[in-house]
């Protein structure tokens, strides 16, 4: 094992569950049987103030999850959701599994934030604060037909991805009218 990865395996950081109120996610692999849980606490500016994990899997997974908790504390949820950098000396599959669990936790937060939103316009993308009306406008103005095109045009859906289904529904409605 690479030295930093081994250090994190033997001395895992941020083990357990984030304090309440927390948002949680999990990921598991059918090929290797590993299971990892992530929980985060998010401040009013969408900054991750706490990140904790639990894992039952190989040493690479434990190291990857531990490293990831350290990496995301202080980042905003869209920043954390779009991490793609591969940690050194860790099996990429294990690192990906840890990121999936984190992303699942961020989506848990985003879904709650969308439900809680009290603004005038319905909020769709909580990562980049894009409203339903803005998305409709972009679709009409540019004849957009896919979620990827919407994300490129106005950032909606470019973070944690929890709103992709909602954006698709807006596209479908616009296409029918």
């Amino acid at each position, binding site marked *: 094992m690479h030295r930093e990865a081994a250090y994190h395996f033997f001395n895992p950081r941020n*083990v*357990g569950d984030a304090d309440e109120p927390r948002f949680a996610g999990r990921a598991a692999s059918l090929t*290797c*049987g590993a299971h*990892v849980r992530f929980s985060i606490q998010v401040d009013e500016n969408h900054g991750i103030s706490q990140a904790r994990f639990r894992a*039952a*899997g190989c040493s690479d997974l434990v190291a990857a999850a531990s490293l990831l908790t350290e990496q995301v504390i202080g980042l905003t949820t869209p920043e954390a959701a779009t991490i793609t950098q591969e940690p050194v000396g860790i099996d990429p599959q294990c690192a990906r599994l840890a990121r999936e669990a984190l992303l699942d936790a961020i989506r848990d937060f985003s879904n709650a934030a969308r439900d809680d939103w009290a603004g005038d316009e319905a909020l769709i993308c909580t990562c980049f604060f894009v409203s339903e009306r803005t998305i409709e406008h972009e679709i009409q103005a540019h004849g957009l037909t896919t979620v990827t095109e919407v994300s490129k045009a106005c950032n909606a859906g470019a973070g944690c991805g929890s709103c992709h289904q909602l954006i698709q529904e807006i596209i479908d409605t616009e296409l029918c009218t």
Partner: protein
Amino acid sequence: MIYLDNNATTRVAPEVLDAMHPFLSDIFGNPSSSHTLGREMKRAIDESREHVAKLIGASDTSEVVFTSCGSESDNWAIRGVLATHPEKKHIVTTLVEHEAVRNLCHLLENEGYEVTWLGVDHNGELDLDDLRAALRPDTAIVSTMLANNETGVLFPIEEIGRIVHESSEAAFHVDGVQAVGKIPINLENVDLFALSGHKLHAPQGIGALYIRQGISLSPMIIGGGQEQGRRAGTSAVPNIVGLGAACRLAHEDNDHARIERLRNRLEDEILKQIPNARLNGVADRSKRLPNTSNISFEYVDGQNILMHLDQAGICVSTGSACHSTTHESSPTLRAMNVPYTAAQGSIRFSLGRYNTDAEIETTLSVLPEIIAKLAAMSPYDKELSALK
């Protein structure tokens, strides 16, 4: 270093090394040569064969043939019988065999043989009625192990052999690799019996196959007339001498009772102290090897435990082997229906003649803490707290 992985391999005994040493320095020669040196080598081989025959209870030394390893012995026994009886296309074996038998039988299925795979119950034991039902007129060979390498569970080979011979004309092969040197061997109803030197303090690279008188077996390695023309290749005299010395040591100075006491202490304390520990294999210790404990630490990962123990200087093995593409839990534990979350956390402790009381106490002093640390990290926190 505390070595609790004696089912994987064992340290070469000093007595074995002493016996081998002259054959790696001053005494050399080809045992097939007729001159003095050759004859001396031949005598050494004969003497080793006697020690092997004595340990396993063969009635004649000619029944013991040296091979390169246990896997060769298993392969030869099975393929040799099949080659001798080309009209018979049926094999009976179990789901918990070592890869040397299991993977060979899978290969033979692809070659057109029909294999009946006998299952085991949650204790790792066979239902002998399954065996009775499996035997057919075209069954060429029945192959089972004596002691399971992972759990130490023993199969009743005397009874299996009796059933095989009463109800069929099949040959009965026993993979005895994990048993030799650990328990007394009874070959009464056994036709072929494989053993491996490095499991009983001989070096790696030497094995033997017992072939009961009257059993005809096609040779697998063709060449010179070594081993009564049954297994060609210049004899590995130093290794053969090593195996002979190891068998003599196991016969004259076995340490079974002491090893069993240490194993019992380790097993009892682990099961008592650690809430998520559960034994794999039959609880009745008379039905298991005296040196082996296979214990699952539920909801934590075996490879993690192994690495923490390794860092503490303790060598064990795990039933779950992780590669980047597969994380296979052991076929033996799967056949026993051990739940996935327990199979993933299985650790095999296998003791040997060089383990001490102090080593067991040291292991017991570090293990609970390691398991507690990993349990605190487990995503199965609800399941774990229900166990307490």
